[in-house]
């Protein structure tokens, strides 16, 4: 089945999936923390819309609740919290430019191709074309990790971590009609707690090592050099 044979709702899911990858790439190349958080919020909102659409297409109403949860948590609450953190710690004027943006971006596209390659056997199981988005969710996960690898700023790490979670959630939605409600609520709660805990940790890290640069944590190494 080609894309031309799908309904517009299904096409919209594919489109949104592609946009979610785009937001992952934008996060990868973003040097300002506030903008990074903003893009993360956009990704959350896109994810929520996708979930709502999926609820409609797959005819599983409990996904509406997930969509609402996603929107409120990842689209609004966590970004606002992160934004406040960044401002209160005075990090919003910091620039962290990548040393070699072209190489990172190339690595990113390589990851997309790789996740496509890895997911191919799963995709071939079913004629459902929306299953193709599995590769996209995988790519979002991998890109989130890449974000954490390339950044030194702890806040960026949190955003990367959350975006990994976004990818996992997206995979669950498109492939298995979403996780059972209990699990989903649990994860949502976990994420919320994690976000709050991270906030607390930031202050602790900063008060003990005067910076949120995770490379500074290297000093905790006990091996004599």
């Amino acid at each position, binding site marked *: 089945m080609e894309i031309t044979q799908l309904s517009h709702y299904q096409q919209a899911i594919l489109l949104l999936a592609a946009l979610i990858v785009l937001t992952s790439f934008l996060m990868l190349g973003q040097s300002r923390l506030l903008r990074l958080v903003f893009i993360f919020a956009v990704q959350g909102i896109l994810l929520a819309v996708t979930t709502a659409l999926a609820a409609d297409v797959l005819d599983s109403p409990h996904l509406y609740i997930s969509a609402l949860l996603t929107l409120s948590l990842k689209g609004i609450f966590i970004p606002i919290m992160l934004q406040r953190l960044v401002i209160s710690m005075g990090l919003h004027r910091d620039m962290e430019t990548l040393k*070699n943006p*072209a*190489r990172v971006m190339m690595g990113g596209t390589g990851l997309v*191709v790789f996740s*496509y*390659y890895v997911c*191919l056997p799963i995709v071939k199981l079913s004629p459902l074309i929306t299953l193709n988005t599995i590769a996209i969710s995988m790519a979002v996960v991998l890109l989130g990790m890449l974000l954490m690898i390339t950044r030194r700023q702890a806040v960026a790490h949190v955003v990367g971590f959350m975006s990994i979670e976004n990818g996992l959630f997206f995979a669950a939605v498109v492939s298995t009609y979403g996780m059972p409600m209990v699990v989903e609520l649990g994860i949502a709660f976990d994420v919320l707690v994690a976000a709050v805990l991270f906030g607390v940790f930031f202050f602790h890290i900063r008060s003990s090592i005067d910076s949120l640069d995770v490379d500074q944590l290297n000093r905790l190494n006990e091996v004599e050099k």
Partner: protein
Amino acid sequence: MSLFFAYLSVVAALASGFLALATDKRSELDRLVRLLSQPWPKLQVRAEGIFSAAHYAEFHRNSLFILLGISGVSAVLAGGTALLSGVVTTDTLPFGLPWLNWHIRFDALSGFFYLLIGLSLIAVSLFGPGYVREFEHGKHSLAVLGLFTGFFVAGMELVLLADDAFFFVIAWELMSLSSYFLVAFQHEHASNRRAAFLYLLMAVVGAIAIILAYGVLASFSGGLTFDHFRSLKLTPVWSSVAFTLALIGFGMKAGLVPFHAWLPEAHPAAPSHVSALMSGVMLKIAVYGFIRFTFDLLDEVFWQWGLLALLLGTASAVLGILYAMQQQNLKRLLAYSSVENIGIIFIALGLALIFFSGGQPRLGTLGIVAALMHCLNHSLFKSLLFLGAGAILHNTHEQSMENMGGLIHRMPRLSGIFLIGCISISGLPPFNGFVSEWLIFQTALQTGNVDSGVIRSLIPTASAVLALTSALAAGCFVNVYGVAFLGLPRSRHVASCHEVSHRGMLAGPAMLAVLCVLFGIFPAPVIESLNVVTGQLVGNTLPQVSAMGWLWVSPVAQEVASYSPFLVLVGILLTVWLCYQLFYRQSGRLEARRADPWDCGFGGLNARMQYSCTGFAMPFRRIFQPVFDVEETIEEQKSGPDGFHTQRLRYQLRVSDRSWAFVYQPVARSVLNLSKWASRIQTGNIRTYIAYSFFTLIILLWGIS
């Protein structure tokens, strides 16, 4: 018929080589001719005229190049008849090993490359007499130059004729060795000697890889002729080994990255007409070897090979042009640009391999056709540009573009010819470089037909790199033309130079320029004739190419893509004419007034304020910085309080090839280490050496028993 011309061409080339030996033998020849022509007094008078000291040099020089020209013309005839008739002729020559005579086979593929040699050779033989004149009074004898030029050409032609591995390798070595002597011709400069040695070294290593590749085939087939190889069925592993060896061997000669290091050193070192042959033709012979080996001799191809070729080709294309852009020496720049073009050819070949292995023989054929077209086109415009660079060198004694400028006012004809070469090599419509690049894009666009999604995503990326390459090539040749020919002269030599006086030195490049335009505007007949080549080689043709008439090219199908360069040209000329009529004639023939250029009101513009070619390339250097090894030093001499006033500024820039640091130096170091380790057996102690002999003897005796 075609074989006769092919032989004639080889013989003429060899004859030219041997005739060159007579350079300093005027008096002997004179005596000989007198003796021979005694019975005919009239003839004797003429012979005296020729063999007089005043005329001998010119006569000898001209006859050398006339023989080369005959060789070129008969090569064109041979290639033409082979392509038109589509007949495969075979022969055996009574040379070589007792049990293996030299096998000759002349098919359409060889014919096509013969054509390519012939066209460049004719241009070179027109250009040569004027160019080598300055060598006559130099330190080096023309005899060496002429001898090895003849051998070099004959070697290339024999490679195309060879139909067994043994003969192929002999011809290959003849080509390599004679070109080594040509590179080393002006050996008084240490840099030239180094370049020649590097060239020899890499040629030898490449030849070893080729011999091993043939060795793999020979060990399984039990024979050395290509017919044995063709009927051979290899296991995938062994055939991959053979392919890899062939890719390394032929790639080394062709100048694929990372085996390209010799190319930018050797090409500027050789005399210009030889560099035209080396860059325009010899690299294509390596491509020929690769095509012959892969598509003809190996029975099956795999997509992994295609991917490898595609990756190497892409890397060569983009790195070649990026390095080309950073050169100031015109010939060195052209050499790097050859690396780029070879990369483009290998991109097309890689695509062909991928399509063939994916069961899409028609698209694979398109890839081969695109590669062959680019071979032809590149040989034309690259020979043109090298000859043009030679003409500039001849007249201004300048190789560095930083000292040129404003040549368009001093050499109007040459600059027109050179402009055509620059447009063609930049891949701009409606000239020939564009046609082949367009064909490659069309091949790449058919990726929708490949099964594997990963390859399907890699091919467009590779072709985007190809687009980047051709855009960079345009930038590079704007730089060349703009700095060398336009603007104001940057040195005294250049300011006082004139158009080349020897007519042939213009006629040679002019002929190539005409061909560039002609093949650009009427590509369909050329592509049609390539159908014979692909029909013989892979048993497939492109039936659709001129489905819309011979003015059109539609490689896949009419509705997929079509291009009519002739109509494009007509359109451009028509609109230019209309604009001219409308705006020039209608405005009352208002002539342009000459005035000083804008100088911000300060006045005193001079030639040193122009953008130099280093300056032009600076944005590229900065954007693609990871590719280069850039060393920049600025020395400032300051005076006044707190060093406020800068008195002098000295800026030094060195851009070098990363492949040295990444590939060559590690290899060189490990070879050195290995040889140091091996040299331990050389103790210097006589008793140890006796012991070596003793143990060798014992082992041998043991082996015999």
